């Protein structure tokens, strides 16, 4: 007889629901029927009929009674029993239960935030279909023994690569404009910050969604501009923007050729994309040589390689390219290709990236690490409380064992207990998220949204974490308790030894982590504070900067005089340079006796500049417009002197820069170093010269008491001036504020997390001591009866924790010392000597441990021994 087997899954299903008494007969009948059918009909039909039968049998009368349902290892009755005993043991120690619950809830909350933030950050730029083969042409610059990084390249490099490198499939150039501009169409004006010149193949390389217009024709001709949807809506409203002529950068007319969706999850930011041809000499209406030659380094070049090309192999070819085309820089520039997908998160080592939106892997990793730490601390609390509190549970466990519980069952019981707690924590964490997501924008650049937490993917990860927490928190206490000999457990014998050692290790670990976090936060915080508070080398408090590169510059003199008319205005300097709002440029100068050109920052200023900004002259004098010879003079900063190695005496004797074929200028003075860039940047040699031909900025020194009147006055003057630009001003001292955002974000987040971890571990320590003291009340009673003093008792209990704390600190200090040193390395101007902070943190930690421990031990030491000894 042939062997026929009915569908296995159906059999399993039947076996699962069917009452054991009925099972044999039903399955037998079904089998017989199945065999009969198989002989008559197809397998498929027989199988489906078998399934049908199994399903029709699934009726209440054939079901198991609920009690008989068996799941993995435990029956539903036992499951209920475990929950009941969990709830009872929670209720027995309400305060510890609540502390643990809140601790784990907060930890879960932080972890969920981290996960969603992580998902968000790591997916930036993922939507570009070419991402895998795209690179950005960066370079390392090694100049005068100093190495730095740059993401910018020559405008001429891209086309050269495409033509001469067989590995390169295509290139596209992106050049964000430096200053904001104003778009005008009919009556509506709109200020845009992101005006970006791009190559015609921009939409071929990147996958932005073009909503209107033909992407392949939209950026070909000079003057073509592509607007983002929000810009188009703001400017045109309901009108169709295509083909309309608008006024844009430098008062030229541009034609709208397409509308593109706003860039979101990408590092490339733009509001207007403008055809590259616009900048090409003899083709567009600008002759921007610096954007199209080899020397100017102002462009981002994105390179698309053919698949399977190793970008490393191109490095030597870059060198020969430079030798051929830019021999001056061939020894300084070392171009390399950075993978496109790394740009967003892994570019923080490249200091200056104009117009790009970048994330920080440091922040992301710190955030992830710190929330894992918090979870560990909270879980350790749970473990400690559970293992310290082993005795009452031991009785329960002993009884269970006597009544025949398997070890496996006991372990499952404690894991279920932990899972139960963790499930409650997740509920609380989600509730917290629900109320707090709108405020997350303070930590993350954009607020996280609730639906990101409810996505299937996040929920699956959450379930994974839930199981992980359950196992982490439940396994050790479970193992410890399940190991108990029932007779010992019932007899209340103390079999601690090993578990208390492990608890010591866990407590040490907790204190270790908390110390790390507190100290880390403190160092980040003081560095941020240092940068913000550092003397910038000039008096920036009361300087207002107006940019007049918008039509007003042609009539600057009248504009200045009107401004000066207000008596709150102390000084006005109209020139190209500012401090805090740019206007200076990088160039090189020649100095006699030094072979190499010196990189300098060139400030084109007028004679009022030093007075307006309060720069202090260290040697010699500042410019004087009355002296004709000053038009051929320079003032430098201290960094310049250091670079060329001149002493002040030498300067008094007279020095000059330039010469040997270049314009020669006498050095008339030295100003003290001042920060013209955020403090992240080293102060480089500065050369200032009197230049009255370019006046694009107005620097106004205002008397503090009259600041608001002066601003009103400025607005009025502005409104009368011939420009379509809206009135906008910058305070020189605000200009660098936003550049500290990264450090601020880090210190804010670390601060909150360190606080949370402190509280959670403090609660844990408090709970742990109270448990140990409970167990030792008799011992303490006896000691007191035998004559121990209160102090001795306190010492007896605190000693252990103090030793653990000291151990944790000894472990934490070298680690934080090393990490802080590494982190601070990136700042040329940084806090010195944070050793004292370490000392303070160490003392404070010991003090906090004492605080957490001594309250309990004092309570124990003061108890009348009669009370603790009377009942046995």
């Amino acid at each position, binding site marked *: 007889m042939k062997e026929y087997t009915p569908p296995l899954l159906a059999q399993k299903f039947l076996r699962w629901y069917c009452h054991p008494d*009925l099972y044999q*007969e039903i399955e*037998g*009948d079904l*089998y*017989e029927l199945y065999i009969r059918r198989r002989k008559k009909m197809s397998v498929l039909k027989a199988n489906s009929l078998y399934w049908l*039968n199994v399903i*029709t*049998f699934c*009726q209440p009368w054939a079901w198991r009674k609920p009690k008989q349902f068996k799941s993995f290892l435990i029956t539903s009755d036992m499951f209920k029993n475990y929950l009941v005993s969990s709830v009872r043991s929670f209720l027995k120690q309400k305060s510890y239960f609540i502390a643990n619950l809140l601790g784990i809830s907060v930890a879960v909350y932080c972890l969920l935030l981290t996960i969603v933030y992580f998902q968000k950050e790591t997916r930036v730029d993922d939507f570009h279909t070419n991402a895998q083969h795209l690179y950005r042409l960066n370079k390392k610059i090694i100049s005068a023994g100093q190495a730095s990084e740059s993401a910018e390249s020559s405008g001429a490099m891209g086309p050269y690569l495409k033509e001469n490198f067989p590995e390169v499939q295509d290139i596209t150039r992106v050049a964000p404009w430096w200053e904001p501009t104003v778009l005008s169409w009919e009556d509506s004006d709109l200020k845009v910050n992101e005006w970006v010149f791009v190559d015609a193949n921009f939409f071929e390389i990147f996958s932005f969604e073009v909503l209107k217009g033909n992407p392949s024709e939209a950026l070909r001709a000079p003057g073509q501009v592509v607007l983002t949807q929000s810009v188009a809506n703001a400017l045109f409203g309901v009108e169709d923007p295509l083909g309309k002529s608008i006024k844009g950068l430098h008062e030229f007319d541009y034609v709208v050729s397409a509308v593109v969706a706003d860039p979101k999850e990408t590092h490339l930011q733009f509001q207007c994309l403008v055809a590259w041809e616009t900048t090409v000499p003899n083709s567009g209406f600008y002759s921007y040589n610096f954007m199209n030659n080899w020397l100017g380094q102002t462009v981002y070049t994105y390179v698309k390689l053919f698949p399977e090309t190793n970008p490393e192999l191109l490095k030597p070819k870059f060198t020969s390219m430079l030798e051929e085309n830019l021999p001056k820089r061939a020894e300084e520039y070392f171009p390399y290709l950075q993978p496109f997908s790394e740009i967003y998160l892994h570019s923080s080592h490249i200091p200056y990236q104009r117009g790009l939106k970048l994330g920080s892997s440091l922040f992301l990793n710190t955030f992830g690490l710190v929330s894992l730490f918090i979870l560990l601390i909270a879980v350790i609390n749970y473990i400690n409380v559970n293992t310290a509190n082993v005795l009452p549970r031991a009785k329960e466990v002993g009884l269970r064992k006597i009544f025949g519980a398997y070890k496996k069952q006991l372990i499952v019981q404690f894991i279920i207990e932990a899972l139960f707690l963790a499930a409650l924590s997740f509920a609380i964490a989600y509730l917290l998220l629900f109320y707090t997501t709108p405020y997350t924008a303070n930590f993350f650049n954009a607020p996280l949204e609730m639906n990101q937490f409810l996505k299937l993917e996040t929920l699956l990860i959450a379930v994974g974490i839930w199981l992980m927490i359950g196992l982490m928190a439940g396994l050790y206490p479970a193992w410890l308790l399940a190991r108990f000999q029932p007779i010992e457990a019932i007899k209340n014998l103390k079999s601690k030894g090993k578990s208390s050692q492990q608890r010591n290790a866990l407590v040490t670990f907790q204190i270790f982590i908390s110390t790390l976090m507190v100290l880390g936060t403190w160092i980040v915080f003081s560095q941020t504070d240092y940068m913000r508070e550092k003397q910038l080398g000039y008096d920036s408090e009361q300087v207002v900067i107006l940019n007049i590169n918008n039509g007003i510059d042609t009539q600057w003199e009248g504009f200045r005089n009107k401004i000066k008319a207000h008596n709150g205005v102390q000084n006005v300097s109209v020139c190209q340079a500012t401090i805090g709002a740019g206007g200076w440029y990088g160039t090189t100068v020649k100095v006699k006796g030094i072979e190499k050109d010196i990189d300098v920052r060139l400030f084109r200023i007028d004679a009022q500049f030093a007075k307006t900004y309060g720069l202090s002259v260290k040697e010699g004098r500042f410019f004087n417009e009355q002296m004709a010879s000053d038009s051929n003079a320079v003032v430098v900063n201290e960094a310049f002197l250091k670079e060329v190695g001149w002493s002040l005496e030498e300067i008094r004797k007279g020095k000059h820069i330039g010469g040997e074929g270049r314009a020669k200028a006498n050095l008339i003075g030295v100003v003290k170093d001042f920060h013209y860039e955020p403090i992240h940047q080293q102060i480089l040699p500065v050369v200032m010269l009197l230049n009255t031909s370019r006046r694009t900025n107005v620097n106004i020194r205002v008397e503090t008491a009259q600041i608001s009147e002066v601003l009103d006055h400025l607005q009025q003057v502005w409104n009368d001036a011939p420009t379509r630009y809206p009135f906008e001003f910058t305070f020189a001292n605000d200009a660098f504020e936003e550049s500290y955002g990264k450090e601020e974000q880090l210190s804010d987040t670390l601060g909150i997390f360190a606080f949370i971890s402190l509280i959670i571990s403090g609660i844990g320590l408090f709970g742990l001591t109270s448990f140990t003291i409970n167990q030792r009340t008799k011992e303490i009673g006896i000691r007191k009866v035998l004559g121990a003093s209160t102090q001795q008792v306190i010492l007896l209990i605190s000693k252990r924790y103090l030793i653990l704390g000291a151990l944790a600190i000894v472990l934490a200090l070298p680690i934080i010392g090393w990490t802080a040193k590494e982190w601070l390395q990136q700042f040329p101007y940084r806090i010195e000597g944070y050793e004292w902070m370490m000392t303070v943190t160490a003392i404070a930690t010991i003090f906090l441990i004492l605080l957490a421990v001594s309250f309990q031990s004092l309570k124990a030491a003061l108890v009348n021994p009669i009370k603790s000894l009377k009942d046995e």
Partner: protein
Amino acid sequence: MKGTYLGEFEELVLLTVAMRYDDAYGLGITDEIEQKTGRKITLSSVHKTLKRLEEKGFITSRMGGATENRGGRQKRLFTITAYGKKALQQTYELRSSMYHSIPKIVWNL
């Protein structure tokens, strides 16, 4: 009559159990009924009815030997109890007495 109420299907099943003395089990009964009545009935309803009949005490059961054509599963063999027989009898008597009380005229209509 109280307590011995038999539904139509119950009666059919009970009759079949009695008929197939010593070889009455779920599938066999189902086959028998299908053959006799020409109705399509489901196996589960027969099992359900057998269970109910046993609960009411009309039949008893024992586990029979396992056979190969049942994949080694035992059959549950049902036998009618004295109470069951009485119930059948009462039903039969009731029906036949009612049948005989039908006036002749009815048949001629």
